[in-house]
C-alpha cells in the first residue's frame, strides 16, 4: 500500500483526467452520438420494415381468407342453384308424370265408358235382331204349322183349353 501511494504520480493523474475529459467530450460529440443515432435509426428502420412486412403478410392472409370466403360462397351458391334446378327438374317430371297419369286414367275411363255403352247398344241391337229373327222364324213355323185347317182348329181348341173362364 505504501508503495502504491508512493507510485501514485499526480502529474500522470492530472494528464489522464484532462485527456480523458477531452476525449470523452470529443468522442461523445463526433463519434458516439452519430454512431448510436445511426444504429438506432437503422434498427428502427429494420423494425419498421419487419413490422410492415408482417402487416403486409397479415393483409395478404386477410385477402386470401376473403378470396376463400367469396369462392366458398360462390360455390355454395352454385351448389344451391344446381340443387334447386335438380329439384325443379324432378318436380316438373313428377308433375308431368302425374298429369300424364290422370290424363291416361281419364282416357282409360272414357274408353271403358264408351266400351260399356257400345256393348249395351250392341246387346240391345242384338236383342232386337234376335227378337225379329225369332218372330220371323216363329211366323214361318206358325205358317207352316197352320197351313192345314185341322191344325188351326186343334190350336184354337188347345188355346181355348188353356183359357179358363173366370
Amino acid at each position, binding site marked *: 500500500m505504501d508503495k502504491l501511494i508512493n507510485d501514485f504520480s499526480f502529474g*500522470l493523474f492530472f494528464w489522464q483526467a484532462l*485527456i*480523458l475529459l477531452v476525449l470523452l467530450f470529443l468522442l*461523445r460529440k463526433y463519434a458516439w452520438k452519430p454512431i448510436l443515432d*445511426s444504429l438506432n435509426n437503422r434498427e428502427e428502420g429494420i423494425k419498421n420494415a419487419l413490422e410492415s412486412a408482417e402487416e403486409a403478410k397479415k393483409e395478404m392472409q386477410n385477402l386470401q381468407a376473403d378470396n376463400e370466403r367469396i369462392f366458398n360462397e360462390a360455390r355454395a351458391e352454385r351448389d344451391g342453384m344446381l340443387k334447386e334446378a335438380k329439384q325443379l327438374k324432378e318436380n316438373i317430371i313428377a308433375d308431368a308424370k302425374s298429369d300424364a297419369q290422370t290424363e291416361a286414367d281419364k282416357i282409360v275411363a272414357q274408353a271403358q265408358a264408351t266400351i260399356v255403352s257400345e256393348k249395351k247398344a250392341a246387346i240391345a241391337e242384338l236383342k232386337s235382331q234376335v227378337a225379329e229373327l225369332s218372330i220371323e222364324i216363329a211366323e214361318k213355323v206358325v205358317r207352316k204349322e197352320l197351313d192345314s185347317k185341322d191344325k188351326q182348329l186343334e190350336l184354337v181348341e188347345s188355346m181355348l183349353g188353356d183359357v179358363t173362364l173366370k
Partner: protein
Amino acid sequence: MHGNLGTEILYVMQKRTVVKILLIFTLVFTTTNLFAKASEKGENDGKVDTKSEIDAYIEHHLQDSHDFTLWSDGETGSHVGFPLPVILWDNGLKVFSSSKFHHGETVAEVDGNFYKLYHGKIYKTDAEGTINYDEDYHATNAKPLDFSITKNVVTILLVSVLMLLMFGGLAKSYKKGALPTGFGRVLEPLVIYVRDEIAIPNIGKEKHRKFMGFLLTVFFFIWLLNLLGMTPLGVNVTGNIAITVCLALFTYFITQFSANKEYWKHIFWMPGVPVIMKIVLMPIEILGTLTKPFALLIRLFANITAGHVVIMSLIALIFTAQNIYVMTPVSLLLTIFISVIELLVAFLQAFIFTMLSALFIGLAVQDHDHH
C-alpha cells in the same frame, strides 16, 4: 522503427487524414530519435543477469518513465528511443527535455535549479545530484510538482488519437450508407456489444443512452491500452495506479451525480429496517459507495500489473537459466501461453471495468418501484 510503425498503421487505416497525422508523428519521432546515445557504462555494466537485477528491471518497466525508451543495450549502456518534455512546477513553470537527465545518470540544471531523476521520480538536488535518504531508504529531497509528458501520457494521447480516428471514421461512414465499410465493420459490433450486453442489461433501456458515451469511451480506452501494453513498445498504462484511480474516480463521480433520490435514501436512511439498523447501516452504506470504485481501480491495476510481471519473469527465465538450451524453449512456450491468456485478460478487464461501472450507475439510477 517509427517509420515502420507508422507505415504499418497506415496500411491498416488507409485514410488521408490518418496519413497526415501519422506523418507528423513520424517526423517528430524520428528527428528526436537521434538523441539517446548515453554511452557511459552503468554501475553494473548494464547487464541484466541476476535475480535482483531482473526484479529491478521489471519494476522499472512497470513504472512510468520520462523518456520513451524502445530498447537499451546492456553492454554499452545506450538507450534507443526519444526524450519527452519535462514540465515541473517549482516556483514557476520549468519546461525542458528529458534528454537532460540522460536516463537518470546526470543532473539537469534548469534556471539555476538542479534536478535528478531517481527511480522514475524527479527530485530537487544540489549541483552534484546528492540524494538524501531517511532510515527507510526513502529519498527525502524535495519533489517539485511533476506535470511531465511522460511515456504513459504519450501513450494515452496516442490511444486517444487512435480512438478519435477509428470511431470518428465509423461515425462518418454512416453518412454514406446505413452499413459501415472497412474497419468500421469490426468496430460496429463492438459498439453494439457494449450497448446491448453491458449498458442496457445493467442500466435499463430508458436510461442507458446518457451513459453510453462514458461506457464506450472507457471500454475502448482500457482495452486499447491493455493491448498496447502487450506490444514490445513496453508501455504499462493500465497497470499504473494513477490511471486506474482516475478511471475509477470518473465512474464514482458519474455514479454519485446521476444518482436519484431513492439511491440516497437507501444510503442514509435505509427503508424497511428498524431505526437502530438505519443508523448502523448509514456508515456502512457510505463506505460502500467508496469501496465499489476502490475495487474497480485495484482490480484493473493488479490484473494488468500481474500479467506484465508474469510475462517478463517468464522471459527472464532465459537469462537466469543454468542451461540456456533447455530453458529457452520452455520459457518461450510458457510466455506464448501466458500471452494468449493476457490477450483474453486485456479484453476481460476492459469488459469488467465497464460492466461494473454500468452496474454501479444502474444501481444509482434505477427506480425502486418494487419496494
